């Protein structure tokens, strides 16, 4: 999984370097092993189901490998992995599972509040809390064991394509960024590949613009929208979406709507396109597709030259279902799996596979590529504004759960149909308000 080709060997003590508090206690570690050992002795076989977002092949493999090792070491616990990747979004998948009565016992939760409100999940058992540095709280409750911290998204570019197009310096402002796109286009390469068949991938760009023009200034924008104090038809959102539309109409590879997310890496390394906008987890896919491919990573600045990235913690991660919590044996099995998952030896493999940033108190080390190092530098830079994607906010800032997918599809329609942005934003306001109303019924 980790390609040994990486040039610089950086020992990243990520947790320590990123987070202020350094209360370096490691009782979690000792308990983890003892927990696993004790469940060995019980004769009764326990089984639970596991569901997670499996869109990223490397992360999927890392998790299923961890599951396999855990089962090898704990023969009396059986984990049934029910994840699959067929639905167009993870939320859709999870809800479908729920609708047919197959809600996983242990689930990677991304829409914590939605399922918490429906009574489907329970709070994280309090004895697991100590494993994590600062797990995000929703109304004072911790529901999730965060798989990793949110990582920045940015441009992953082919060094060769940049050199061929005569791009020597990385852009400092958004206009410089557009100039780079123009140069790339002139050099005959398709500037950007977007995996728009998977709606979340197109969302990376949508959120980049939303963060620059909306969330960086006002992290509480969503709650104001719900209260109808602000609107999508406001100038700043219209500006963000105008930029989005312009970029997509001019610089995105023509087949983007039928390209799935996991084909983007091979299109990038094949030289069909020069850049890809995604998160750090993409690095391992790129190295898998071509170990000799030279690439770099940077965050796209806004017009004033500020850099705003996704990077706040959000309530997401391994979560126990309410159903499973009723069964003490299951709960114990799940707890010992969670402890096992976050043991440094295991956890580092998972993190390395998707270039993640650890959420645990304990230091976790793996070798980071130069591209990963630039992502970490962004995280550590106090001048870089950290924010979240539209659907990752919580509390009053939670958007109606079905809104995100609809919104992204509406934007697809706007781009391909060359719709008027202001007009589309009005329609989006109407639908948002209607969904808020429908959910309160």
């Amino acid at each position, binding site marked *: 999984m980790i390609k040994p080709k990486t040039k610089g060997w950086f020992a990243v003590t990520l947790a320590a370097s990123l987070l202020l508090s350094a209360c370096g206690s490691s009782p979690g570690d000792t308990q983890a092993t003892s927990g696993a050992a004790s469940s060995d002795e019980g004769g009764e076989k326990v089984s639970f189901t596991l569901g997670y977002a499996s869109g990223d092949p490397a992360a999927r493999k890392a998790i299923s490998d961890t599951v396999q090792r855990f089962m090898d070491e704990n023969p009396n616990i059986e984990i049934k992995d029910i994840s699959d990747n067929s*639905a*167009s*979004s993870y*939320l*859709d998948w999870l*809800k*479908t599972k*729920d*609708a*047919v009565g197959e809600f996983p016992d242990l689930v990677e939760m991304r829409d914590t509040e939605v399922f918490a409100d*429906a*009574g*489907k999940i329970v709070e994280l058992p309090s004895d697991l809390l100590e494993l994590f540095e600062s797990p995000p709280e929703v109304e004072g409750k911790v529901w999730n064991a965060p798989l990793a911290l949110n990582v920045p998204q940015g441009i992953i570019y082919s060094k060769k394509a940049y050199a061929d197009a005569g791009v020597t310096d990385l852009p400092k402002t958004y206009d410089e960024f557009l100039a780079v796109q123009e140069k790339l286009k002139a050099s005959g390469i398709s500037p950007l590949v977007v995996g*728009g*068949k998977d709606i979340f991938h197109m969302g990376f760009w949508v959120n980049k613009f939303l963060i620059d023009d909306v969330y960086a200034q006002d992290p509480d924008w969503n709650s104001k929208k719900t209260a109808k104090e602000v609107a999508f038809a406001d100038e700043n959102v219209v500006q963000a979406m105008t930029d989005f539309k312009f970029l997509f109409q001019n610089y995105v590879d*023509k*087949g*983007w*709507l*039928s*390209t799935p997310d996991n*084909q983007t890496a091979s*299109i990038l390394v094949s030289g*069909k396109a020069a850049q890809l906008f995604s998160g750090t987890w993409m690095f391992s896919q790129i190295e898998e597709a071509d170990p000799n491919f030279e690439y770099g990573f940077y965050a796209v600045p806004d017009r004033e030259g500020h850099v705003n990235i996704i990077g706040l913690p959000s309530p997401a991660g391994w979560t126990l279902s309410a159903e499973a919590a009723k069964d003490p044996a299951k709960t114990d099995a799940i707890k010992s799996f969670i402890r096992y998952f976050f043991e440094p030896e295991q956890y580092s493999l998972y993190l390395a596979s998707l270039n993640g940033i650890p959420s645990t108190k304990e230091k976790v080390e793996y070798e980071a590529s130069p591209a990963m190092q630039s992502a970490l530098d962004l995280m550590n830079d106090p001048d870089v504004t950290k924010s979240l994607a539209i659907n990752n906010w919580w509390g009053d800032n939670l958007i109606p*759960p*079905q809104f995100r*997918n*609809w919104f992204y*599809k*509406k*934007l*697809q*329609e*706007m781009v*391909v*149909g060359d719709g008027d942005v202001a007009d589309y934003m009005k*329609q989006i306001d*109407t*639908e948002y308000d*209607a969904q808020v109303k*429908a959910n309160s*019924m």
Partner: protein
Amino acid sequence: MGTPASTAGLQVKSKSRRKKSKANSFALLFILPSLVLYTLFVIVPTLGSVYLSFTSWDGISEEVRFIGLANFAEIWQSPRVHNALKNTLILTVSLVLLENIAAIAMALMVDRVRWFKNLFRSLFYFPTLLSGVVMGFVWAMILNYNFGVFNQILNAVGLGAWAIDWLGNPDYAMVSIILSTVWKGAGYYMIIYLAGLQGIPAELSEAANIDGASGWQQFRFITFPLLAGSLTVCMVLSTISALKIFDQIAVMTDGGPGFATETLTYIIYKVGFGELRQGFGTALALVLFVLILIVTVIQVQILRKREVRY
């Protein structure tokens, strides 16, 4: 009944009643398994749908709240539903017309062609044997922008400028779905038309030949009118199957780009399972059911009238 005068009659009656009840019990025994399963797995859930359509149930919580006609009011107003309805109608009208035209043409070819009749019939029919998922995938691969055969062929013959993202372009995505569904469906109706053609007495066309009627005239005034019975059946069947189209869309476009290929069946699935608004989803499903019912009844009425006229 109890009057002495009718004792003899009573005896006869009770004998026949005994026989009747025996016949009834045998019939009931024979019918019962079907009746139970059908009631349990078709009618009960359908009634469940009717009930749920008046609620705001999300499919997971314990609480089922009755909201009257609010779901139907939302359907009436929702632009997304209107769009899905519009797409469904476009799809249905195009499919019904194209599938039937193609099927009649193919039936005529197979009927008239001199060599390899059976082979041709099998070739035309074969696509109908494929599942919507398999067929949708194969077509999605053929039409893929980057690696698809179709664009490769266009490039090879120097028409590279025509190569577009067939399933990612809102204008062509629907066309692609329609044409690939015609490819898959027409063979089925061809068989029905073929049976109709073979029922037309040969003397009729011979007579027309002698009268000097052209091929088109023969078709227009003799063959086509005599296919009226097959036409009714094919129109109704193709309409129902077009209104229910789902698999191809799930595989080829996922309702996209945007909402360009989102149909009623697709939105029902999405809303009911993916968005957990099962109350709203079932309300939509009932609307679809009523739509199918109305369209079928109207079609049968009109087409039957036409049959009589000829």
